[in-house]
């Protein structure tokens, strides 16, 4: 337990949208030097994509998973309604996050929503495992944000929609 302050002191402050931050890999590598095996497993097993561990023994993780589940349930219900041509009013966040906006803006808003939740609801500990879990979640949010690169995205979209390699079948009707 006494090692946490040393590790916390090594980590730079994070703010939403910044591009300079330690990667998840780098962060875990550093954490691995300071934490015991059990704590490290808890830390490395936590992620912003986890919505199933709602009964996790660590209440912080369970709380985040419940929050993530609420977001995802709302998104799923919204998409299903949209496919069926119906309206759906979201509960976990304003519907305007998804409606009349681009998918990129929606993803950025949802990541901001997660960030704000973590910062406001979970960021109550300093220099302990809780604080490191919060840090890890924040790093993952920044990584997701940074992954939205227009140039790489454009290249990938062009590859996906390249029709030259689609097999053509000639039929004389």
């Amino acid at each position: 337990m006494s090692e946490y302050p040393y590790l916390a002191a090594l980590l730079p402050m994070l703010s939403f949208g910044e591009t300079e931050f330690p990667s998840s890999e780098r962060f875990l590598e550093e954490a691995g030097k300071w934490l015991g095996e059990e704590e490290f497993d808890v830390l490395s097993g936590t992620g912003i994509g986890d919505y199933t561990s709602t009964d996790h023994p660590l209440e912080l993780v369970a709380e985040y998973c419940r929050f993530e589940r609420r977001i995802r349930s709302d998104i799923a219900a919204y998409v299903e309604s949209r496919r069926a041509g119906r309206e759906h009013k979201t509960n976990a966040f304003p519907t305007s996050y998804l409606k009349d906006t681009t998918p990129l803006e929606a993803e950025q808003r949802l990541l901001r929503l997660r960030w704000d939740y973590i910062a406001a609801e979970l960021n109550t500990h300093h220099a302990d495992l809780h604080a490191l879990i919060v840090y890890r979640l924040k790093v993952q949010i920044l990584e997701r944000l940074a992954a939205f690169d227009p140039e790489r995205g454009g290249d990938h979209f062009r590859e996906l929609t390249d029709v030259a390699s689609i097999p053509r079948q000639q039929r004389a009707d």
Partner: protein
Amino acid sequence: MATKLKLTKDSLSREKKALARFSRFLPTLKLRKTQLFNEIHRIHQDVEAREAELLKVTESVTRWVAVFAAEIDLTAFCAPQGYVVRRENVAGIEIPVLGDVRFQEEPYDLMEQPFWLDAGLQSMKQKILMELELNVLREQLEIISEELRTTVQRINLFEKVKIPQAKENIRKIRIFLGDQQTAGVVRGKLTKGKLTRKRKARAATAQG
């Protein structure tokens, strides 16, 4: 090397038949030219409309294309398998027409995948369909334009070469045959005059 025109009645008949044939084909060719021209115009309009739609989709996607950089294999959920091109007869020629476009689609768990995936897959499909439609329309344009070029060449050949040539040949043969007829008449008259004169001379000798 052009063959020498035979100035005979047979040749005149042949040239007359050829002229009649060319004159009969010409309106058909002109009609075909109009049909092809109209088809090209229609396809051009289709191409322009599709290009505008494609541009709209592309511009719209450009605003959020960054999401496609995320580490998700979209082809696991929707992958083009192939497309069918049928042949249709337009203005007497066969042109390709886009038939079914097949996609291998896999349903996915909305809880597991990000929000943008639905719109991403939809845009991907939309762009592929538009690109294929445009490609086939451009092929149609190429085929019909080539046919129009050939038809215009034939019309020019008939209008500017074959028909005037046949008319000129008929004129030449008619003049030649007319001259021959005149010469025949003159020769006949001369012979008749000679014979008459000979007959008269013989009669005068017999009387004297």
